[in-house]
């Protein structure tokens, strides 16, 4: 049932209509920001997947003779300062961007949300310790820690992802704990306790579903921040290592040539913007769709 549906979001609402999908997907396909956000996100995902099997040129092949070419039939968006094909770089760069985003936000969500929920559920010393530790991480400059981590583990994608992930944690701990505390004060939690439920089950069944909409929106923002952080770390030579391309690196390489060939900065910038915008809209849509109060049938 859901297999044809998931395939059809790519194409959008228009083609999906005649199949009359039901429930979640029917509402999802009518939700404008979910459809637009989903399409943009799938474009980025599609680019990353495509780069695994095909790119117009090799993203690693340097051809200094044809450097800084304007767009042409051979190079659709031109070439960079080393003569590499921009389209190929963007396609391959999408891979590292998605990887950094998903893994770093994954680390942040996994630890941040569980610690935040734990702090809200247990209160007392547990909460104090978690919050002070998160303050400590928060107060430490992220770049400094990334340098430290790079000194120990060596620079590279794994190091930068780990560092970015760790710095997602405190934000998410704070957000989760704050929202979870507000839910714990609600009467339905008292009612759940009155029906005999323990802290763990209340957290999973009552608190988490109610903080999820906030977390989804925040996760899309964190994803955007992770992409930008990866760009910054790449610039310092701590992130993705050459010749591995990433959108952040492309942006930084373009910086020195801003007056000569400004378009070199525009392409990766636009790619980042599309990814971030797509995720934000997707998150917005998802938040609406997951809220039963907004799930009006007609």
């Amino acid at each position, binding site marked *: 049932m859901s297999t044809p549906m998931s395939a059809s979001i790519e194409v959008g609402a228009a083609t999906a209509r005649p199949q009359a999908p039901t429930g979640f997907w029917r509402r999802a396909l009518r939700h404008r920001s979910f459809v637009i956000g989903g399409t943009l996100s799938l474009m980025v995902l599609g680019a990353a997947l495509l780069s695994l099997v095909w790119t117009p040129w090799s993203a690693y092949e340097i051809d200094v003779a044809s450097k800084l070419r304007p767009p042409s039939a051979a190079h659709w968006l031109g070439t960079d300062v080393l003569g590499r094909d921009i389209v190929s770089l963007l396609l391959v760069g999408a891979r590292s961007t998605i990887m950094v985003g998903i893994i770093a936000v994954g680390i942040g969500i996994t630890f941040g949300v569980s610690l935040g929920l734990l702090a809200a559920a247990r*209160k*007392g010393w547990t909460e104090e310790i978690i919050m002070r530790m998160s303050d400590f991480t928060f107060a430490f400059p992220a770049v400094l820690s990334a340098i430290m981590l790079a000194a120990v583990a060596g620079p590279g994608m794994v190091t930068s992802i780990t560092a970015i992930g760790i710095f997602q944690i405190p934000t998410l701990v704070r957000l989760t704990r704050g929202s979870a505390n507000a839910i714990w004060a*609600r*009467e*339905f939690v*008292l*009612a*759940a*306790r*009155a*029906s*005999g*439920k*323990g802290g763990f*089950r209340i957290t999973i*069944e*009552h608190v988490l*579903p*109610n903080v999820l909409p906030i977390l989804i929106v925040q996760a899309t923002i964190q994803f955007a921040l992770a992409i930008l952080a990866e760009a910054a770390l790449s610039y310092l030579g701590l992130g993705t290592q050459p010749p591995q391309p990433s959108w952040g690196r492309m942006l930084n390489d373009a910086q020195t040539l801003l007056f000569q060939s400004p378009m070199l900065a525009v392409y990766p910038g636009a790619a980042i913007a599309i990814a971030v915008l797509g995720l934000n809209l997707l998150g917005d849509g998802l938040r609406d769709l997951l*809220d*039963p*109060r907004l799930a009006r049938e007609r």
Partner: protein
Amino acid sequence: MSGSINTPLIEVRDLGIRLNTSRGPAQAVRGVSFSLKRGETLGLVGESGCGKSVTALALMGLLPDSAVVSGSIRLDGSELVGLSDANYGKLRGNRISMIFQEPMTALNPMHTIGRQVAEPLRRHTNCSAAEARKEAIALLDRVGLPDAAKRVDAYPHQFSGGQRQRVTIAMALACQPDVLIADEPTTALDVTIQGQILDLIAGLVAERGMSMILISHDLGVIAENVQRMMVMYGGTVVESGATNAVFTRMGHPYTQGLFRARPRLGARKGTRLQTIAGTVPELADLPSGCTFADRCAIVEDRCRMALPAVVDVSAGHGVRCVRTDVSMAEAVGAVGA
């Protein structure tokens, strides 16, 4: 474990609750004692902040961790004060249940009502999801939710306030508890719905032989729905007895004040409601003597010296007042006024 017929189902002895408030420790409840037999109904009446709800939460073991509870609460002879949260969890929703004041917020907006009614069953009995669902539909049907089988998968926002309160009642009754605590169950509802909900609760209590503690600030609700009542003020029980006895022979000046303050049908236009002068004392700095002393018309010096003892004015009717001779004489006037 279940006690003999003579053992009261619930026995509260000298219950004291100290809460930590922003203004320092507050003795929210002092020396509250009562017992409740199987099938008996008890009303708790008093103004906001008099300790009614705190007493109810203490019975449920749901006070904040910082609260200090002294005295004893026994359910079927076994002590509940100091019980671990895990063990308390086995009683809550199973043997003691509670209905809350605000049906709009007492249900989780993210879950269907069927799931929420089935939850206590899943928690306390070994029934499967399908059985729990069937039972939930039967319960929703019993509490008078129209078209229960069809609406079991609807979300709380799709119901009216009265319907939601029916759902919370179904939730509370799911495991056939021995004791039902109803904390102002109709305060948030329309007057037209109030009667229906109270009738429903009273019917279910009688049908299942449950004991009920009904908390309300509405004397009318108390008069019609419980056999015995306690009037609370400033964390103490100022008067307790059979509902009839308390209403006909109000022994405490506070009870009389409450009675005079209620609006009446047929009062002449322009008649002002009587009020009790003064305000409820802050729990953080309660007077050492009678808590009502500052607002009492017949106060004497000895009222302020120490908390008055309970005087039995008739069998099972106790009044915490040193001046029952005067107040009882005036009681006639209060009813007439």
